[in-house]
């Protein structure tokens, strides 16, 4: 993926890096948005990560690993922004959703419970879920992107999904549905 551009940007080619920013910045922001669940913080994390990517790009030994490496820097930036979130206590915004008849999330209770459960997860756990279930990265690549062992990635994914599945089960319980009517 864009290896020539990455190599050129490593050499300080600003045109090449501008092209990478435009081509890949959207995906990075999408990941940040899903990890942080806050639009402003996701913007700041993406900006922080992109500038760090430029600064550190010459230290990337294998240009072919640019994408995975960029996710690693993005998750670090998300950690940093999560700390800021703790400081600034912003209004947390729910992501826009567009439920349709075929949507397995047609029940608003599901979305609400998932949102709540996801926010109880650490940034590390969120990152594994997002990279695996949003970007469809295999667990081996998730582990490589985050600089952790595959077993650790698997363990985090298991823990996080168990929490999210439990949240969906809770949304189905009559008491919850009664309470949300």
């Amino acid at each position, binding site marked *: 993926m864009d290896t020539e551009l990455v190599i050129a940007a490593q050499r*300080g080619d*600003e045109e090449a890096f501008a092209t990478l920013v435009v081509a890949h910045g959207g995906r990075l922001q999408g990941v940040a948005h899903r990890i942080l669940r806050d639009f402003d913080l996701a913007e*700041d994390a993406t900006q922080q990560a992109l500038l760090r990517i430029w600064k550190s790009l010459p230290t990337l030994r294998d240009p072919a690993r640019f994408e995975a490496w960029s996710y690693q820097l993005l998750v670090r930036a998300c950690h940093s922004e999560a700390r800021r979130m703790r400081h600034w206590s912003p209004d947390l915004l729910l992501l826009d959703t*567009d439920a349709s008849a075929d949507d*397995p999330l047609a029940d608003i209770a599901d979305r609400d419970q998932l949102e709540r459960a996801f926010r109880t997860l650490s*940034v590390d756990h969120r990152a594994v879920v997002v990279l695996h279930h949003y970007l469809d990265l295999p667990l081996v690549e998730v582990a490589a992107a985050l600089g952790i062992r595959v077993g650790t990635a698997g363990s985090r994914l298991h823990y996080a999904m168990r929490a999210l599945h439990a949240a969906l089960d809770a949304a189905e319980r009559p008491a919850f549905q009664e309470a949300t009517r």
Partner: protein
Amino acid sequence: MMRMDHDRTRAVRAWLAAGSDGLSPRVRDNVLHEFPLTSQDRPYWAAPWLQTSSFAVGAAAGAAAVTLAVAMLGAGLFGGIRPGGAGATPTSTPDAPSPTVAPSATPNTLDRSYRDVGFIGLPPPGATPSDPTHTELIEVFWRPVPPYKGAAFLYADGRLIWNEYFGEANSRSTGWLEQSLTDEGMELVRALATEAQFKGQRLRILSPEELPGLLPARAWVDQAVRPYVPSGYAACLFVTEEENPFTESDMTPEEMVAALPRAAADLLGDRPPVVDSSNSYGADSACLELDVADARRLDRALRAAGYEQDGWRNRYLLQDYAELDRPQAGTWWLEVWFEPILPDGTITCSSCG
């Protein structure tokens, strides 16, 4: 009837798939503007062709980048770019004596070098506190959108104390800066901010960088940008869980002070609290007032106990501190943040950006 695992996973995937994608114009503009001003790290192992400085490549590549950006994204892309000083190379000089920055040769804007003037954390040795030390806060402005993003505080004595996010004092913020307005200048600034409001008029916006172009010369007592040097600091104690900074702790201020290294705890006993005007640190924090001399003593006590400031430049992260085995699950860190007290006696998070 409970769903099967694959149904629940499908629901999680659908939930993740919903929502916005794409790079915001704000982020795109800021990054395309900022990265050419940032030098790249050059590793010792880099191949010879990688050792070429990005700035040596600069002239041709820079021209090409501008051409590309304009061609790709249209003339409107750089609408948010700050004029002036585009060739400056940012450098962090938080421990050096702080210079001042005069208005640029271009009379309508400040030179970008103001971003290197400020500091985060304790002031450089010998720095004279900003005068007067106490005065009334007249107005708070927030500017959450480009080209300037930050906060500005207007005081009754005419000082405009402000910061900009993504500054160089700690790579996140410029630190607090100050300029001085006449009475007429104060009224003009308030009028300008009232005209320009943001998000349903919840936030009044102001761009100190653009003020020179909006105000007459008589609006300024002193247009030069200086670092704001406080006469006192708050030591904000704050406990956070290693894995999940969203979790609030149940540790009391007294418990947090007692958990500090002995010399630091002795310094913070019976200190009055400081108002955290933006609730930056949350209800489970304690911000305690110190004069500059005692803030330096606390700094030395923490360093003597082996705790150094980290990249925020005003935070000491007390990791693995034995006293922090909390009844709550998880690994807890005690953090100590130095916050400059503003002239109205309050603090906010100066380093957050």
